[in-house]
């Protein structure tokens, strides 16, 4: 595949790796939106990113920033700043990066699956849900125009083991936030600090239309579990999703007229698709009937 022509995807910030993935003197090649890139941390500590041709010639240099434990770049001129996740400033939270996992699916499918609480009892049985307690109470999902994000809140759900720090099954509250088309975070009841929310997020690097690398992370209050315990838990959940993600058809998220009627998507997914359509995003979507 060659570099996308989709201006919406091009003119936005995209993740290309964890900060720890880039060590001095070890240039790394990667892909973004169908384009090959090389990224290298220089002696002064700065990371430089270049688009390269299939023959390896340097084409142009791309802006870079290191934020939220990850490295971000853009193939164009972003109209807005990288989104903010203010909770990264709370120093008493435990930050855990789970590393990049490749999924043979559209990055948008990964975000969409993340937003879907309906699959918990079936795919994450005994952890994030179980039959017959599959009921999801009515909740609110909306596009917030002021911040240009999709939000869903007032979600309550029965979970057997909501977080590693949870003891016993209980009703868990959730909020979802889609901060940009390929990046999303959720807020859920914090078993250890009821006045705070635990955060789980996904930054998806859209490599090709049908291939992405997904960086999961957690920002939690958890004094009981080690970082490794938390990584194992999150990776277990994510690898349960992978079989489903890699078998979804069509590969792209369907945005054509009437698509929402042919597919039983949940409310947040519907808002997400509507928002993508308003943006005119093409990469990783299916526009054909």
């Amino acid at each position: 595949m060659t570099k996308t022509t989709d201006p919406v995807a091009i003119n936005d910030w995209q993740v290309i790796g964890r900060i720890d993935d880039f060590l001095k003197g070890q240039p790394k090649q990667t892909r973004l939106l169908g384009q090959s890139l090389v990224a290298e941390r220089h002696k002064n500590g700065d990371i430089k990113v270049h688009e390269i041709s299939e023959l390896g010639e340097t084409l142009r240099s791309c802006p870079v920033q290191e934020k939220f434990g990850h490295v971000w770049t853009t193939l164009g001129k972003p109209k807005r700043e990288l989104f903010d996740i203010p909770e990264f400033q709370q120093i008493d939270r435990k930050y855990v990066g789970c590393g990049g996992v490749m999924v043979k699916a559209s990055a948008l499918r990964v975000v969409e699956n993340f937003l879907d609480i309906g699959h918990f009892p079936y795919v994450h049985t005994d952890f994030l849900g179980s039959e017959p307690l599959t009921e999801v109470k009515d909740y609110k999902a909306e596009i917030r125009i002021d911040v240009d994000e999709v939000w869903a809140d007032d979600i309550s759900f029965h979970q057997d083991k909501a977080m590693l720090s949870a003891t016993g099954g209980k009703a868990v509250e959730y909020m979802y936030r889609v901060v940009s088309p390929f990046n999303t975070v959720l807020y859920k009841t914090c078993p250890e600090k009821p006045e705070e929310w635990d955060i789980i997020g996904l930054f998806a690097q859209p490599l090709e239309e049908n291939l992405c690398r997904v960086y999961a992370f957690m920002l939690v209050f958890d004094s009981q579990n080690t970082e490794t315990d938390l990584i194992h838990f999150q990776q277990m959940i994510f690898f349960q999703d992978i079989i489903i993600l890699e078998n979804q058809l069509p590969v792209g998220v369907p945005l054509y007229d009437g698509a929402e009627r042919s597919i039983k998507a949940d409310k947040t997914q519907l808002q997400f698709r509507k928002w993508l359509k308003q943006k005119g995003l093409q990469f990783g979507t299916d526009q054909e009937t």
Partner: protein
Amino acid sequence: MSSKPNTQKGLYLYDYILSGNCYKVRLFLSFLQLDHELIPIDFFPGFEHKQTEFLELNPLGQIPVLMDDGFVLPDAQAILVYLAAKYDSTEAWYPKDPKLQGRITQWLAFADSITGSCSAARLHDKLGFKLNIEQARKKGHQNLRLLDDHLVENKIVGKDWLVLNRPTIADIACFPYVALAEEGGISLNDYPAARSWINRFKKLPQFIVMPGIPPLHGMKNNEGKFFNQEGLCFS
């Protein structure tokens, strides 16, 4: 290491949740109903198995490693043999018969070849490891062809498993990375006997799952579609 056993007493497994080689030991521990504690290793993204502390346990820098009352044993196949010899009083999993033990060991060695092919392809496709993917997949298919043909021949003489008409540690050793092959882009479409064998595993008492190896009844998404082991979709 996250939590080193503070006592030498007891059975511990240095474990990674996504590792098929660790899973085969977890599975056997479950079949034998042996009490044990898992010690999670940050295989990815931390590469903890390549750090000094872990290399002291296993200089090869590989998981799994078993620790039984202070006796340290790396290598999944070695662990299966050890657990069977020490804890399986029924002698069902590793019968005390020279020919059978020879035959089982043949499959234990073959299991390592499955790791070197099917597991390698999965590490490439899922965790981005740099390796020759075409070669890994090709070797994976060769191994699957051999295993599938063998299961077909066994079926003709009334055997449902690799060595006997009941599972042995030979089956356990080969099972995980065959069941996970699709995650490395190795389709199981052409290996129906292997697929039936996978399903037979899932019906065994005390069978446990791992991510990527869902239970027999499959998984259902919110569109009401079921996904089974092979990722096939049926409503």
